[in-house]
């Protein structure tokens, strides 16, 4: 059993005790810290529904050994909105454009799109497709997701 450790998630220090060495960050976020926004689908890096930011870097949380993330700044989808009831610009655009059907892929996409627009405020179609190439959605066919990204980018650019 590893020594207890502490994870900094969305600005809050969370103690993690009685863990197994083999636990992924995804497992700890969901099962130990109750942060179920981050989704668990494949646990092999294939779907990005578990995407989080670690020290600002887009990462599949299923491929992070939880204990090694101590001391880093972890941001989950719960940490991206502006408070509990306020949607972020990206979330708002997903709703407006109908880019959500079952919603299972949505949290991972929201995190990935935040990351993309941070680095590239005016992405081309090709940029968006490449940035989201690891995010699998079985419902939407991606067209509305693409539209939502461009819409979010435009809204962000128009903001002061």
């Amino acid at each position, binding site marked *: 059993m590893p020594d207890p450790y502490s994870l900094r998630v969305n600005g809050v220090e969370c103690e993690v005790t009685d863990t197994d060495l083999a636990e992924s960050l995804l497992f700890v976020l969901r099962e130990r810290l109750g942060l179920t926004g981050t989704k668990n689908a494949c646990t092999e890096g294939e779907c990005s529904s578990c995407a989080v930011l670690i020290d600002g870097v*887009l990462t599949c949380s299923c491929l992070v050994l939880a204990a090694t993330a101590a001391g880093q700044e972890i941001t989950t989808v719960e940490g991206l909105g502006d408070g509990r009831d306020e949607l972020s610009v990206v979330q708002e655009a997903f709703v407006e454009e109908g880019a959500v059907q079952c919603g299972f892929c949505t949290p991972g996409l929201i995190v990935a799109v935040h990351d993309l627009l941070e680095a590239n405020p005016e992405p081309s179609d090709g940029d968006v497709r490449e940035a989201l190439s690891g995010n699998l959605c079985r419902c939407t066919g991606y067209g509305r997701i693409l539209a939502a990204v461009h819409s979010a980018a435009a809204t962000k650019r128009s903001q002061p």
Partner: protein
Amino acid sequence: MSDVVVAQSLDEAREALASHPDATVLAGGTDLMVEINRGLRRPRRVVGVAQVPELRRWSVGADRVVVGAGVTYTEMMTTALADAAPALAQAARTVGSPPIRNAGSLGGNLGTASPAGDTLPVLAALNAEIVVVGPDGERRMGLDDFVVGVKQTNLRPGELIVAAELDRPRGRQEFLKIGPRNAMVISMAGLALVADHDARTVRCALGAVAAGIPRAREAEAWVAGQIDWDNGAGVDDAVADEFGQRVAAASSPIDDHRSTAAYRRHAVAVLATRALQRAFAPGGHGDA
């Protein structure tokens, strides 16, 4: 030592491994965590090396490029390393997806030693020397000596991959790969080709079509005599086609869940022809 050490320096990683040579080295986790999540591996001790600054470094010299084991695919694509080792950048861009490229590292690709590891043909074509350190000090070896079988390396207990040192020849470089999609695919066939206008050689290595990472040495020697090195004219179609056939002869593919041997051999020929034509397309002759 606690069960998990997140090393902050090379010395710390070496010491942790020296006292527990059975500990598992963890870099970006994109191979190892898949196995852990599937329950195929249950390490008792882990030494995390992703935050070791010495392993995250790279440097570009006049004719050698040193890439630290911890350098990620994203870094290979987006830093000045991409100009110094263009085929490495091209290979990096084909790996997985952005989050996989943010975490996955050169050292992890070497440590896994899959025949489909996309950086491996590039390392072979750039005459890479793999640098490892362990309880008995430093060892250096070519890729052929490092990768000893399918997913088998000659790393000894307690050893750490530190870096790969690559040639920096004057000439174009190509990496090409075949898979069912443009992203998130493991190679069905991969190929790296490097032109060296000073040595007047072409070097070509193959991925996913043999147990190891073969160099197409017969084809390399033949094509070097067919190139118009002085005038920078492109290669004839007939030469490019024959080069493809000769390179394919260096492969020994198998049928598996990703592809068939026959398709792989065909794909290698197409990739080799294409890579040669691109590397010697008129214009920009001699410049990387």
